[in-house]
Every structure is written in structure tokens, then in C-alpha cells.
């Protein structure tokens, strides 16, 4: 159970190579944005981390619903794993946004609706992970976490639509028609790369969760 499987190695190496390729294309091949200059190259890491955070929290939501219906601890382990990785991606999204914001807007941070709702998203899922530490009983812990995982997901569409609903400094969602084909393809390549990284980390994190569950059971059994 603790060793890496062939598919895990394959996904890991593919993710590493795709990240390297996506970075080379994003930093060197695709031209700089006409308005923002080279700092726009941060988009090729900022947007994929944001999308992967959304995907991670969607999985937490689905697994939480499944857990409450079936009470199968495997769903709880997948939800916990995805939440932890989602927190990493959300923190990266915020940090990268600040690095893009400083030269573009002149400030590291502003209480803009997109930034504020994303900070709330991070707080919700840090809370989700903290709640898991409060309960010793695995069943109670999984139930509490599932409730937070379901309610907390309500903030994801709010983050996405914040740039549509409110007046904001952050640019509105781009569409394939609003960006040049070379920017779009570079973004898609990096999105694929980060999706592979997410898949790889999920495989490893769920394997670790299973191992931790086994240890918890053994410790409880031996007193």
C-alpha cells in the first residue's frame, strides 16, 4: 500500500515534463502581452492554480455528499486529500495574484471582490482542515468535515462570478474569443500540466490518508 504504483510514477514524470514544457512556452515562446508586458506571463501559472483549486474543492463537495449518503471512509479520505491540495493551490493563487497585482495595479493587495472572496475561500478550507483535527472519533470527524465541505463549496461560484456581479479591479473571465490563439494554447498547455500535478498529488495524498487511517485503527485497537 505504501509503495508507488506504475501509473503514479508515469503521471508524476508526465506532470514534471509538462510543467517544464509549459513553463518554457509561457516564459520564452509566446510573446509578451501588448498592454501588460512580461508580467502577464504570470497568468500561465496563476490561472491554472485557481482552476485547480476550484476542481479540488468540487471534488471535496462531491466526496462529502457521497460520504454523508454511504458513510464510506474512503470518500472522506479523498475529500480530505483534495481539500489539502486545494488549500495549497488557493494559497499559490493569492500569492501569484499579489505578484501580478503590484506592477499592474500598484498595490500588493486591495479589498477587491475577487481577492476578498478568494481569501475567504482559503479561510473556509483551512477551517475544514482545522475541524478535522478537533474530533478524535473518525466517524464524527468525517461527518463534521463533510458538512463544511458541502457548505463551503457555495463560495466557489461566488469567487468565479465576483468579477461579473461587482465592480472590480480584477479582469473579467476571458473566453477563447477574447484572447489570442497563442495565449490560449499556452494557457491550455499549462492547465493540462497543473491538472497532471493535481492528479499525481491526489494519488500520493490518498495513499497517505489510507496509511494514516490504518495507523489510527491500530492505535485505537492497542489502546
Amino acid at each position, binding site marked *: 500500500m505504501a509503495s508507488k504504483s506504475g501509473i503514479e510514477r508515469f503521471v508524476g514524470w508526465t506532470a514534471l515534463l509538462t*510543467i517544464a514544457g509549459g513553463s518554457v512556452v509561457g516564459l*520564452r515562446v509566446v510573446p*509578451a502581452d501588448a498592454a501588460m508586458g*512580461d508580467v502577464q506571463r*504570470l497568468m500561465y501559472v496563476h490561472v491554472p492554480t485557481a482552476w485547480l483549486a476550484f476542481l479540488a474543492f468540487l471534488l471535496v463537495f462531491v466526496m462529502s455528499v457521497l460520504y454523508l449518503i454511504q458513510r464510506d471512509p474512503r470518500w472522506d479520505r479523498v475529500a480530505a486529500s483534495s481539500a489539502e491540495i486545494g488549500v495549497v493551490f488557493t494559497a499559490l493563487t493569492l500569492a501569484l495574484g499579489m*505578484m501580478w497585482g503590484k506592477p499592474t495595479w500598484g498595490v500588493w493587495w486591495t479589498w477587491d471582490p475577487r481577492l476578498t472572496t478568494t481569501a475567504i475561500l482559503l479561510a473556509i478550507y483551512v477551517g475544514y482542515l482545522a475541524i478535522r483535527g478537533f474530533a478524535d472519533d473518525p466517524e464524527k470527524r468525517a461527518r463534521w468535515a463533510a458538512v463544511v465541505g458541502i457548505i463551503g463549496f457555495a463560495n466557489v461560484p461566488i469567487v468565479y462570478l465576483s468579477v461579473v456581479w461587482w465592480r472590480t479591479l480584477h479582469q473579467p473571465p476571458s473566453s477563447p474569443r477574447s484572447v489570442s490563439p497563442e495565449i490560449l494554447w499556452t494557457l491550455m498547455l499549462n492547465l493540462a500540466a497543473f491538472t497532471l*500535478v493535481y492528479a499525481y498529488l491526489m494519488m*500520493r495524498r490518498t495513499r497517505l490518508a489510507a*496509511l494514516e487511517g490504518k495507523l489510527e485503527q491500530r492505535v485505537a485497537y*492497542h489502546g
Partner: protein
Amino acid sequence: MAKPTLGFVVWALALIVLTVYATGAGMQNRGFVIAGYGLTWGTLLWYARRLDRRAAATKGALDRLAETSGG
């Protein structure tokens, strides 16, 4: 002193290559671009390494438990 891991060495080399390239290409705001990409690569490598350490610690605890409880 702890030995640097392969991931750390790869990350440091990638940062050096990026800095040399961005400086040579006269990239505007290159400090932000280098910091952004460096932070992203570094965070992902740090997290993967952290999973390794946690898995090793958990496996070690399971083995110790098996030894003390006679298998």
C-alpha cells in the same frame, strides 16, 4: 547539516536558468516573474516532499507498533 534533496537542487538550478534568461532577454518586471514561477515550482516540490516525509513517518509508526505488539 541536512543534505539538500534532488528536488531542491533541481529547483535552484531552474531558478538560476530563469534568472539568467530573464535578465539576458531584458524581461520587464522580471523580479515578479521569477518570484512567481519560483514560488510555484518550489511550493509544489515542497508539498510533494512533505507527503514523502509524512508517509515515511506513518509507515515507521506502523512498523514500531507491529514490533511492540508482537506482529
